[in-house]
């Protein structure tokens, strides 16, 4: 160990020098504080023995300067002192000394103190190494997190329609990654799918599950799958990839402005709240499914709640981080405080802001312990396009060609799956001219659901005109579909190229007993005043729409030109 002796008393200095040299320590000596500091800097000793009273600079000041000059290296300083009073010794320590040695020197004590300091110095250097290692590691992790966050936000945001005019959302992650995932996207028919997911835990591990979820959500929504299908497929994927102790509490919402319906699938999130035009709570939809990623889903688990949408409805959804937010006293915000806003005294268009302000005022400076999300769907604006329009999706564009596709669905198939997405995908993959997809989807969807609902299931659309009838209609549909024993629907698509585009003929035939074509047209078209969709809509989109047989065969012709 290299030792620096700073002492103006040459006899003392010589004695020490001899003692230390004999023990094998290299020694350098200075005879005043100022030279001591300079020598310390040039020689970088491992230990300093420091006298107190010296010319030019005293030992206290020299000790201070030495400690200051090497903040990261532990260099023990032992004061050499004749004083033995408490105050004098305390002052040595205060000046940055680590120990003291009283004159006259005792060789054994000097050796003991030096080896004690050596141990502390070693310990310090190990600690310092570990600290540097940790810092390097931390920087590495931070860097990787930043890359991960970049990927994460790109995957989650691509095609995300959170700027849709009908959505207000607020989310406050507690760490770099958000364990609450909020995604929204348009369905091919122009409806809106929204999903709020809350993964177990926070941070990176929670966010990793968000990636497959977001991919599935966008992919399936674009293909025309329903939220029940989405829940099932996301559940299956998450159950496969996530560890047992992780799951995702989630709520899926479909808002269909044209059908005037809101569908909800809630698995593990707090109650979804619906307020009316006066800001009063008119409906709560509690979680009635297991969260996603826990167990395989049964048919029952796919069930969604259907609500008839009123234009002045506002739908509110939050993660449990909101009601479980705690203030400094450790008290939770709670469900009652939240529900208190829905008494009709807060103007409905201010509810969202009022809730957030109230939460902030409640929480003050208390530490955030969970991700918090709040979402509002303003039904009146559900029909509006987002400012940037729908996100572009790349599709191959095939020159107009001759082709034909035919599908036949039996009762057993119709009960088990919704074949519409399959047909749509086959069509979209083959020839889906830009700017015409939504219209083609709507025509197919309408003709197909008419064949199923009215042809095979014999449902009467007139029941949909009243609120009770609206729910009754969907309830009946489910019962009759489950009971369906025979029947089939055949779909044929034929495309012919034209000079500047093409002509698509859609033929949908069901095995039902049909209707009087005159009557069906008048009452299906009456559907317009309620749902705004229906056959009347198809007629406006098509070049031609004709019924054959007992109106159990519908044939629509759609002409398109390249844009």
């Amino acid at each position: 160990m290299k030792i620096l002796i700073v002492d103006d008393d040459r006899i003392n200095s010589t004695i020490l020098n001899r003692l230390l040299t004999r023990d094998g320590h290299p020694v350098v000596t200075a005879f005043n504080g100022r030279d001591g500091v300079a020598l310390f800097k040039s020689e970088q000793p491992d230990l300093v023995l420091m006298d107190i009273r010296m010319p030019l600079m005293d030992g206290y000041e020299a000790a201070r300067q030495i400690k200051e000059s090497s903040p990261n290296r532990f260099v023990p300083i032992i004061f050499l002192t004749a004083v033995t009073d408490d105050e004098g010794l305390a002052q040595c320590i205060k000046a940055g000394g680590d120990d003291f040695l009283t004159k006259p020197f005792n060789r054994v004590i000097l050796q003991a103190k030096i080896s004690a300091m050596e141990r502390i110095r070693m310990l310090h250097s190990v600690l310092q190494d570990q600290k540097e290692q940790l810092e390097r590691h931390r920087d590495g992790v931070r860097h990787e997190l930043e890359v991960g966050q970049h990927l994460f936000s790109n995957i989650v945001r691509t095609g995300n329609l959170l700027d849709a005019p009908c959505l207000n959302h607020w989310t406050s992650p507690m760490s770099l990654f958000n364990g609450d995932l909020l995604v929204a996207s348009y369905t091919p028919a122009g409806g809106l799918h929204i999903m709020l997911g809350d993964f177990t835990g926070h941070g990176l591990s929670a966010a990793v599950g968000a990636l497959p979820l977001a991919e599935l959500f966008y992919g399936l929504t674009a293909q025309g799958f329903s939220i029940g299908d989405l829940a099932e497929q996301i559940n299956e994927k998450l159950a496969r990839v996530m560890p047992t102790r992780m799951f995702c509490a989630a709520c899926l919402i479909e808002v269909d402005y044209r059908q005037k319906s809101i569908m909800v699938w809630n698995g593990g999130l707090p109650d979804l709240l619906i307020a009316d035009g006066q800001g009063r709570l008119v409906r709560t939809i509690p979680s009635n499914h297991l969260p996603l990623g826990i167990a395989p889903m049964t048919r029952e688990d796919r069930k969604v709640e259907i609500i008839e949408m009123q234009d002045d409805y506002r739908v509110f959804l939050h993660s449990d981080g909101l009601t479980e937010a705690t203030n400094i006293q450790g008290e939770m915000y709670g469900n009652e405080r939240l529900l208190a806003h829905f008494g009709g005294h807060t103007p409905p268009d201010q509810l969202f802001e009022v809730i957030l302000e109230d939460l902030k005022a409640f929480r003050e400076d208390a530490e955030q312990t969970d991700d918090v999300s709040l979402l509002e769907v303003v039904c009146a604006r559900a029909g509006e396009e987002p400012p940037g329009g729908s996100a572009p999706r790349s599709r191959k564009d095939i020159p107009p060609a001759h082709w034909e596709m035919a599908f036949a669905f039996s009762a057993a198939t119709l009960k088990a799956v919704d074949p519409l997405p399959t047909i749509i995908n086959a069509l979209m993959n083959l020839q889906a001219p830009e700017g015409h997809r939504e219209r083609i989807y709507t025509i197919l969807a309408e003709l197909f659901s008419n064949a199923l609902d009215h042809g095979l299931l014999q449902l009467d659309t007139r029941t949909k005109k009243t609120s009770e009838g609206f729910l009754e209609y969907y309830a009946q549909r489910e019962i009759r579909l489950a009971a369906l024993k025979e029947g089939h629907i055949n779909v044929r698509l034929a495309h012919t190229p034209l000079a500047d585009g093409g002509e698509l003929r859609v033929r949908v035939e069901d095995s039902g007993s049909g209707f009087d074509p005159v009557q069906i047209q008048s009452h299906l078209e009456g559907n317009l005043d309620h749902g705004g969709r229906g056959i009347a809509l198809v007629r406006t989109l098509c070049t031609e729409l004709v019924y054959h047989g007992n109106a159990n065969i519908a044939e629509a012709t759609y002409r398109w030109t390249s844009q």
Partner: protein
Amino acid sequence: MSGTITVSRSDKETSISIKGRFNFEMHSQFRTAYQNEIDGSGGGKGQRFIIDLTGTEYIDSSALGMLLLLREEAGANEADIEIINARPEIRKILETANFQRLFKIT
């Protein structure tokens, strides 16, 4: 600050009582509490687990995940696990996650 766990065992029954906050910090404690029984009985067969939430003040989603892990390790659908004495707020959290379908909650 997290909670404390006490375990009492009889022949075929393990009772795990959680006091205070049941959250992610309890992970290794909770796992230790049941691991011996599961290892000793070859996957927890015939073992009955009682999760006593009498003194539990708070439960978070990580704790729900731990319950799922216990269920999985104790035989999934064959697991015999009963959650008892949850106070109303905690029962609400369990029910929001529809855990009554996976556990007996009394």
